[in-house]
């Protein structure tokens, strides 16, 4: 090939002079190339060397930029896929949570009515066999209610709609009532409940903390075959440690984390015929995180377990200001039952609830006036003054809230005690009721809770709560 175009003619036809000339030029080319190859292109700063360096640098930059872009593209694609997967998972989770919340909420209403009817039926004079059956129905409904309540709680916790409402209160207002309640439950299982009262004042969310202790106590009673259950407090520097201990089988080291996950139950739970869903400690864990109040577990397998939650002391200056709805008032003697003959107004837009309340309150000797609206109620009450108003918070989409209605009625009937009933477990609502000087009960309505509240409202002088 005509690489250098030195000569176009055949070698054989070249004269010695031509060959000498070609030889000279080849030597010259060789020399130039060698000097170029051997030149130190770095140091002398020659213009061509600078150009050469720029080219090589640009080449490297281009390659690295390409590699970088490829890596970025891949990262971007991976990121897009991850985001899509995350969005999908979140959507699925949200729809699951919403579904659970909606179903649980819808089930609560008819269950509420069924509970009221069953309670009312228990007060009727029935043959013993029927009475026992009614008792079974009542307990079964109570179990369903407990399970549903758990589902509502966990779905609400997961949906992030529960808000913490901390206030100072005396720890005994909570524990006295729980001790009373679980002493009976434990007694049925042949266990002794040992309760050590405390006078400490703590700051927490009463309802959420009650849920935690209740779950501790339920587990203790459920899993302990024999011995006793302990409920008490230890004063620590950082707060009051509320303790629930038992003499049950204990929890093995390797299971101590797992039991706080959803749907995890003790391996031999089946043996205890427990009707739990395995959500109790999962709820405890979520609430503990929300409250920022730590839960601890100590256990010796075969000897027992000890669950506790540590709650900070209330500021010394802040007096307990929460109405003592949780306190179990001593039930008065039948003769002086304050419910007897007292006028109770019920406003609810659900006919089944109205009928159930009429049956239940009527069985307690109350004079019940129940209707869907105030005007219907007043029309049927012959100018009689009500002592207590029970009003559903959600009275339908286009009506005022039960809270607004109660406020309105309390202006017309000064001293009227009002209880707002709601299936909405938002702390916001119970706080609003409290601030308005009213009480708040959550659905499903527990007949005993309602009765205790009514007794406490009716035994206090009128206006004391305002």
């Amino acid at each position, binding site marked *: 090939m*005509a*690489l250098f*175009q030195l000569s176009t003619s055949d070698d054989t036809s070249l004269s010695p002079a031509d060959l000498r000339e070609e030889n000279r030029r080849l030597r010259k080319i060789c020399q130039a190339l060698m000097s*170029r*190859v051997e030149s130190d292109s770095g140091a002398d700063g020659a213009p061509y060397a600078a*150009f050469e360096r720029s080219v090589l640098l640009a080449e490297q930059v281009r390659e690295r930029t390409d590699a970088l872009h490829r890596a970025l593209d891949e990262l971007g694609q991976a990121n897009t896929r991850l985001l899509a997967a995350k969005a999908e998972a979140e959507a699925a989770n949200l729809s699951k949570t919403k579904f659970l919340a909606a179903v649980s909420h819808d089930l609560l209403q008819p269950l509420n009515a069924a509970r009221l009817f069953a309670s009312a039926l228990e007060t009727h004079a029935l043959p013993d066999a029927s009475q026992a059956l009614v008792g079974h129905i009542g307990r079964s409904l109570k179990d369903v209610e407990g399970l549903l309540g758990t589902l509502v709680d966990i779905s609400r916790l997961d949906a992030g709609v529960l808000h913490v409402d901390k206030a100072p209160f005396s720890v005994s207002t909570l524990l006295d009532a729980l001790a009373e309640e679980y002493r009976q439950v434990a007694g049925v299982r042949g266990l002794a409940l040992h309760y050590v009262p405390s006078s400490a004042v703590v700051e927490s969310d009463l309802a959420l903390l009650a849920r935690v202790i209740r779950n501790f106590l339920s587990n203790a009673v459920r899993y302990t075959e024999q011995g006793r259950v302990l409920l008490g407090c230890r004063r620590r520097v950082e707060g009051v440690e509320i303790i629930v201990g038992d003499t049950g089988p204990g929890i093995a080291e390797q299971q101590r984390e797992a039991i706080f996950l959803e749907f995890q139950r003790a391996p031999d739970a089946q043996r205890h015929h427990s009707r739990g869903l395995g959500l109790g400690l999962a709820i405890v864990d979520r609430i503990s995180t929300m409250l920022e109040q730590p839960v601890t577990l100590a256990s010796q397998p075969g000897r027992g377990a000890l669950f506790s939650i540590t709650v900070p002391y209330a500021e010394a200056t802040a007096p307990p200001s929460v109405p003592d709805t949780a306190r179990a008032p001593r039930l008065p003697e039948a003769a002086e039952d304050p419910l007897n003959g007292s006028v109770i107004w019920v406003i609810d837009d659900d006919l089944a609830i109205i009928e159930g309340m009429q049956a239940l309150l009527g069985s307690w000797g109350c004079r019940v006036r129940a209707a869907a609206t105030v005007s219907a109620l007043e029309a049927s009450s012959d100018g009689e003054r009500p002592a207590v108003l029970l009003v559903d918070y959600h009275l339908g989409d286009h009506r005022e809230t039960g809270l607004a209605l109660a406020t309105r009625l309390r202006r017309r009937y000064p001293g009227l005690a009002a209880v707002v009933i709601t299936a909405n477990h938002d702390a916001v609502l119970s706080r609003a009721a409290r601030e308005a000087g009213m009480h708040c009960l959550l659905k499903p309505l527990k007949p005993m809770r309602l009765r205790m509240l009514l007794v406490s409202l009716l035994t206090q002088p009128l206006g004391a709560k305002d």
Partner: protein
Amino acid sequence: MTTYPANQGTVVVASRSLNAEHAVQALAQDLNHAHLGGVIFFCSAEYDLDRLAAALISAFPDVPVSGCTTAGEITPHGYDRGSIVAIGFDRRVFAIETALIGDLDQFALSDAQPLVDGLIERCRRQALAPVNEHSFALTLLDGLSSREEQVLATLDAALGRIPSFGGSAGDDNHLAHTHVYADGRFHSGAAVVVMINTGLPFEVFSTHHLIPLSHKLVVTEADRERRRVVELNGLPAASVYADLVGVSPNALAPGVFASHPLAVQLGGQHYVRSIQCVNDDGSLNFYCAVENGIVLTAMQPAPLLDDLNRMLQGVTARLGQPSLMIGCDCFLRRMELEAVEHLEQASTLLRQSRVVGFNTYGEQHHGMHVNQTFTGVAFGTLPTFDE
């Protein structure tokens, strides 16, 4: 008073009046605007440069103005000569900062770094877009200086990841007086660096239409200071080159150089080294650095319009219809277009893609001094722009 397209931020105006005052008046009328943030212009070397400078100072007293003389202008109408074309930048879309390198001979990295840092810092203060991802540098160099390679390599090192491109000033092929303009004055032996920071999408590009042949020439004697090749393949350079292209040595002229370029091959790419002129002693002067022992490859042009069209279409595919392109177009390309009478068609292509710029004595791309290319920047448009 002009309205700047809100999503583009530039206005272009050209004047063919060779009277400096009249020409600048025409520019000012269209460019002056409450939000004018900077002006870049390209002008024929025929202007009385002192009068032009004075007129520019009084017409644009408050904004940075930079520019250079040309070997032909590219205006909104296409290729032109004996004119001045200017771009006005809206400061709401562009941050424009300029710096003058007054003495190319003394420019070292220790000068380059503070110069570039200053430009970046001043752009950053205008807070339009992150400087590193949204800026480029435009370099305008005195095209008859032999220091272009070193200055560019130094500047590129200081610029780091910020892309750069530019052109060497021309003087309508007289090879006598090329000038760059900054700080209210025309300078020779100098360079202007313009840092442009913008939220608009943009792309710095470079293209050429030349393909390699098999013939190789070895530079066997060179004068690097004067960019002069004395001998090729051990014989006087001009006669070897004339032999190669098949013309007699006294027929060698820019038209021949344009259609028979030589290039060096580096890293798999060919970089054209354009011949400037033939000397009486049979040596060849180049527009860029040469060195003893480099191997030159004979090149031949492929259809220029096809290459130009392909490049413009590629840019449009990536950025959308460009709102403006600034092009540094080697004057040898223009010469070739004129020789094959394709200048009008090329003008049409440039007009359609809104190219403004000038014919150079050399182009700069990422710190490389190259010849016979079309090198520049293309701006896209903003989807929306808040007033």
